[in-house]
């Protein structure tokens, strides 16, 4: 296949995987809609709003049927997400093959977003079984779908070769670390956001989505785990690999370029999150808010910097 054909393949794969994400989102929405008629105790043990599912045999049978349907929709959703992730991977890989010479597909914002959303999906799928993440499914599929749409509509760039400044092995090291950290921070941020929602409305309708979320402690722990994983990766990407590369390419480790400034801000805010989580009076709600601020600075750094200070940043291509 020629480079141009790979580019077409990549674009088509993005469209196909977006469609698959959309179907997965629909399946998960159907899952949660069906679940509304089933008492939370029938499907999920972790729900805190358990109550006796009173009523006669009819009710119980209906509950059984609905429980089956809930499980089936959940399975369909996860299978569709897995398929979408596979096609997504094809989109990313063919994007790299489309360039002449072949290169890693992280040369601009479009490609970065494409890969970062894939990381979110992969992270979610990897952790799905171990932490029973069915409650996270609609959020992940919805998020990935919307981000991909924005990516295609606003950030799309035709394939071009890497500019000289990017031709360095550090591109691979620095950017893949940044992408992994971004994906993990995003997953963690979703948990923190759900934590805040659940914390704000603790007594929702029984059987509803919120009542099926894990308890506050579990949400907090999940958020902490993903973000505690992402933090050292981010430290490596932004404060070790980045400066080493900057030293090679631009002659200074750290130059307070807008992108560097915001990477530093993100790092400081997540450091504050880790501290807040261990401080009396900051645990829980406040820590979750700090985590979301951190996520906001991360995404702002990634997208906003280029739009607002694009010309002033040496990272204007990223």
């Amino acid at each position, binding site marked *: 296949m020629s480079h141009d054909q790979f580019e077409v393949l990549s674009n088509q794969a993005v469209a196909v995987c977006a469609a698959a994400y959309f179907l997965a989102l629909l399946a998960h929405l159907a899952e949660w809609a069906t679940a509304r008629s089933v008492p939370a105790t029938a499907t999920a043990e972790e729900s805190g709003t358990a109550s006796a599912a009173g009523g006669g045999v009819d009710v119980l049978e209906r509950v059984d049927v609905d429980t089956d349907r809930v499980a089936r929709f959940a399975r369909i959703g996860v299978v569709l997400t897995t398929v979408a992730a596979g096609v997504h991977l094809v989109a990313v890989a063919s994007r790299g093959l489309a360039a002449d010479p072949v290169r890693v597909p992280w040369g601009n914002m479009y490609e970065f977003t494409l890969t970062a959303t894939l990381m979110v999906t992969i992270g979610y799928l990897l952790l799905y079984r171990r932490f029973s993440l069915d409650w996270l499914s609609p959020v992940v599929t919805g998020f990935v779908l919307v981000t991909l749409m924005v990516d295609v509509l606003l950030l799309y760039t035709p394939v071009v070769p890497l500019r000289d400044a990017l031709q360095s092995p550090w591109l691979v090291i620095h950017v893949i670390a940044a992408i992994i950290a971004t994906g993990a921070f995003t997953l963690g941020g979703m948990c923190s956001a759900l934590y805040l929602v659940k914390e704000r409305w603790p007594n929702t309708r029984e059987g509803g989505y919120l009542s099926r979320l894990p308890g506050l402690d579990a949400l907090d*722990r999940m958020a902490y785990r993903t973000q505690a994983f992402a933090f050292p990766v981010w430290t490596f990407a932004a404060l070790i690999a980045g*400066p080493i590369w900057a030293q090679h390419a631009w002659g200074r480790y750290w130059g307070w370029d807008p992108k560097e400034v915001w990477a530093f801000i993100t790092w400081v805010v997540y450091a504050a999150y880790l501290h807040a989580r261990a401080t009396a009076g900051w645990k829980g709600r406040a820590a979750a808010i700090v985590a979301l601020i951190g996520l906001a600075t991360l995404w702002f750094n990634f997208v906003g910097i280029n739009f607002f*200070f694009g010309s002033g940043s040496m990272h204007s291509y990223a």
Partner: protein
Amino acid sequence: MVSAGSTTEGHGSTTEGHGSSTGRSETTGREGMGSAPADPGAAPLAPREFLRWAWRQLTSMRTALILLFLLALAAVPGSVVPQEAVDATKASQWRENHHTLAPIYQKLGLFSVYDSAWFSAIYLLLMVSLVGCILPRTRVYWKALRARPPAAPRNLSRLPEHRAFETSASPEQVLERARGALRGYRVVSDVAEVSRLAGARTSTTGGEELSLSAERGKLREAGNLLFHLSILVVLVGFAGGALLGYKGGVIVVTGNTFANSLSQYDDFRPGSLFKPSGLAPFDFKVTDFDVTFIKEGREAGMAHKFSAGLDYRTSPGAATRHTRISVNHPLTIDGTKIYLISHGYAPHITVRDATGAIAYSGPVVFLPEDNTFKSWGVVKVPDAQGPSGPEQLGLEGELYPTYAFTDATGPFSAFPDDKNPALSMLAYQGDLGLDDGVPQSVYALDKKGLKPILKPDGKPLRVDLMLNQTVTLPDGMGSVTFDGMSRFVKLQVSRSPGDLVALGGVVLALLGLLGSLFIRPRRVWVKVRRDGGGPDRRTLVEVAGLDRSAGGDLAGEIDQVVASLRGAPQQEPVRDEEQV
């Protein structure tokens, strides 16, 4: 400090000895914010107590958190307002465009946020707070490191994970198996302790009791301390580099040489402790500059694989060596690094005056303005002879490397390579202002004392030149010739001695961080008790665990310990608290 070690959701209080790991959080937890350790409603504090109170406040976790937020917030303006140290040209442009705001911003230090007093104050306070936290914690940790794992608490079932089962094995066998199962743990079964405990229990239960304490993951706190200590190392490295090092920029036209001395730099930013004698005595000649512009396809016009050839000598007497530098491949001479930053054109311009003598001749650096390398430059001719005595001439205007023209766009550069170079400059006469004693930019004309040279029809004269053309100035003032094209390279020469210290610090910090986040400190206790007497005596085994960090699968680990203690499958366990 990331004292996640004390975040076991209140479990720390279930056994003795856990609450004593003095972390920042606990200090604040005990004392709260803004309350003096002494009597809250009492008379004003004595100076010493006030100091102690202030120190405690400063080193509390809350203050550290607030300082972290302030640091993040304080860093923001530096990305919005152009910074002197990052892009001096941009900063001065901004100043010119914002007459009212500029003086205020200047006072606030917004043009150099990262060495302003307030930014420094925040991170220095943060460092003091950090030291105030590390020191006591290191002391506590040092003690804890040598301490034995605490003895089994009296009531194991109150711990977050607890299992109990019966077995026919003897207590000694069970404990022996436990030692095997708890590989990686520091295991202790203190005889004196056990006998005391056993003694206390014999009267109530009528059986003998043995216990075993195990602990692992003490390195978490070491990682935590290492991480915070390394941040100090990084700062020291950066400060050292900034104080002792320097960074300079220079534009060199191909064929010209550069010797490493202060007068040769276009801009030079030394650290406060830098001495000019510290400049390495190298020199080099830029022999050539190579660039390929992509000619076809979407990316047409993009510069590709550019590099400069250098003939350099490490000192005036040394042998000359040749090398090529390019982006991502700098040249290092005795710790000083030379980077290729950018490139551009330097057209050769010759100005003849009214007498026909050469008043100016040579390559003139034109600074690129966009991707097509349309460039802007200035020629200053201070010593020309006019028709009526000495006068000064000035030229300013554009260079188009590949000149093209349409009615819609006017003149433009169709391609960045020099396929069809053209100059288009306005000419001035009068006083260039070079004798005012005020330093001038070589890239701008001071038009105070200058007036445009006019054509006979009264319009300003535009000197439009293709390569090898000459334009005659009106009124016999002379002529301007476009002789040829050279390229220039912009180089950065810098030295920052603390770099390796800083880099080492960051790597250590990462190691410490990994330790402090992923090492899971935990304690496990095993208690065995013989019940009753006779040949079918049973041994009652209790296993309990305490996770001293958040997260981690303690339940699973305790289950594994239980499984290996039971050895061969026996009766169903008497489990309690399976789900926590």
